[in-house]
């Protein structure tokens, strides 16, 4: 964000256009940026609150995932060195928040289709505010889903065996990753022709990404190339790091691959890389999109 002189350039010599009071005076570009971002976030959250079907889905899906995987696969999948429910939960958490961030993509596509983006783009608001608002509100949704999953996990016997600080760090890590991933999905959402495309893309990209990982099985059990993929898959690093922070690793051997041995730094670097690449791409894309 470039910081410009307070008040904006034109507001001084064009006061006649704003009828009711001048534009918020003496506020720097940064303040306006924060305020614009907050206004769009609030709009998205209000929208969510008023769409009960979506909210129910957002609440039920995490519960369903936790119960389905732990109760159905728990009996038949064995992980040497850990109880499967303990092993599984970090995988479910990671998968669910990653899928949750796809909402950023479909919602951008929907807003574009509805012409709301056109409205925003003709307003003198910060050019990144819509994207900030989008990713923020999806972060709220993902936070809700992590809380729900942890509660459900607790009911089926999952436990954090480390301390509160590590547990909190695990939650923050999940949310950081999902936040960074929201920007990837937002770019996708602005690049497709209809919201439906996003859902298809989600299946094609995210199912392999989350399943060919250590989320549900040990990579060692996978055939050669898939094992390598799983060990270097960023989702695996996320799951491994969260497992460590929650103390759910038991005595399961950690694969030799570097990202698995250094899961936490790998995830942190990954988050930074995603943000550094996709935030500017999103902002640039946003400056040229318009409904068709």
């Amino acid at each position, binding site marked *: 964000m470039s910081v410009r002189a307070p008040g*904006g*350039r*034109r*507001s001084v010599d*064009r006061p*006649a*256009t*704003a*009828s*009711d*009071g001048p*534009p*918020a005076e003496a*506020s720097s570009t940064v303040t*306006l940026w924060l*305020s*614009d971002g907050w*206004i769009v976030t609030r*709009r998205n959250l*209000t*929208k969510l609150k*008023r*769409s009960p079907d979506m909210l129910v889905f957002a609440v039920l899906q995490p519960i369903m995932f936790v119960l389905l995987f732990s109760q159905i696969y728990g009996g038949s999948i064995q992980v040497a060195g850990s109880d499967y429910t303990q092993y599984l939960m970090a995988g479910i958490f990671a998968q669910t928040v990653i899928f949750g961030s796809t909402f950023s993509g479909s919602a951008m596509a929907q807003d574009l289709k*509805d*012409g*709301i983006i*056109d*409205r*925003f*783009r*003709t*307003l*003198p*608001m910060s050019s990144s*505010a819509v994207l900030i608002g989008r990713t923020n509100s999806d972060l709220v949704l993902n936070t809700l889903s992590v809380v729900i999953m942890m509660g459900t996990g607790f009911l089926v016997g999952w436990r954090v065996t480390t301390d509160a600080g590590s547990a909190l760090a695990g939650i923050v890590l999940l949310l950081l990753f999902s936040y960074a991933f929201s920007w990837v999905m937002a770019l996708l959402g602005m690049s497709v022709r209809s919201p439906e495309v996003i859902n298809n893309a989600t299946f094609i990209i995210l199912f392999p990404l989350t399943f060919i990982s250590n989320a549900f099985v040990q990579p060692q059990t996978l055939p050669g190339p898939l094992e390598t993929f799983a060990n270097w898959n960023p989702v695996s690093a996320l799951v491994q790091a969260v497992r460590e922070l929650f103390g759910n690793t038991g005595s399961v051997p950690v694969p030799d691959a570097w990202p698995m041995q250094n899961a936490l730094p790998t995830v942190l670097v990954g988050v930074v890389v995603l943000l550094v690449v996709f935030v500017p791409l999103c902002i640039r894309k946003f400056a*040229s999109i*318009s*409904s*068709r």
Partner: protein
Amino acid sequence: MAIIEAEGLQKTYSSKSGPVHALDSMDLTVPQGTVKALLGPNGAGKTTVVKILTTLIRPTAGTARVDGIDVVGDPGAVRRIIGVSGQYSAVDENLTGFENLDMVGRLYHLSAAASRRRARELIDQFELTEAGNRPVKGFSGGMRRRIDLAGALVIKPKILFLDEPTTGLDPRSRISLWGIIKDLVRDGTTLLLTTQYLEEADQLSDDIVVIDGGRAIAEGTSDELKAQIGGHRAVVSVVDPADASVARDILGRHGEGDPVADDDGRSIEVAVSDGPRALQLILADLGEAGIDLHDAGMRRPSLDDVFLRLTGRSADDAAVAADPGGSRNGRTSAAGTETAA
């Protein structure tokens, strides 16, 4: 002083079947405090002009200034002084009318209190009380358009852009919206309006630019254009098709140019310059000739008449020509296809 000046605007999109020229060297000048209408069929390039002037898209070539500000060079400054309402009603369905307007106010950077006050003012002014406190979802098209239009007026913009403000509305909502727009421009707001309806351009604007294939093909006041296309039209419909040729001669005698018959040959019309007087003479002669009529009357020229006269083809054909794929032709779906086509 011209508050909107555009020169040589071009917009080219790439498509599977080669480049599509949405705009092909378009010039436009709108003096301050006046209302200009861009009149043309789907795909003529009207929306593209509006999108360029409102900073939504960049022209491939050419320059445009709004209140002296280059739309490409400083879009942020342009956005501070314009209000835009598009053909899609860009209101958020899950927000109430009030929340929609308040959000727009805050994003124009009014203070929280000023924004709320302005939203309430607009709710009253546009008679939106009913939609004020309930989500927009479920309200009629006319109500949504009013909220969208109100959104464009949150800051009392220097220049207002309305892109097909009444497309898809029923006649009653259309007339009500016209009333609102007329009140606005009476206060001296500069308005650039796009429309497919000659009557709308006629009702609302000082000056009309007829646009086709991405270029202005005629410009003038409504009267000037009508003079060019023959003003009103007298229409009669005969009971017995055998009378048609005699009726045709009579219409030809009092009208300007050749009378035109419709497909079944019973309904015949001709452009007339002196309106009701010509119709009286036609009816008198038809009566003398003993010809029975189903119907007779005057008709305003339509966009189709303008097009037929100016381009030699109908507006519908022009819309098809502008979108050769035809896949998104808007004649059946009112949801417009103007944009890229």
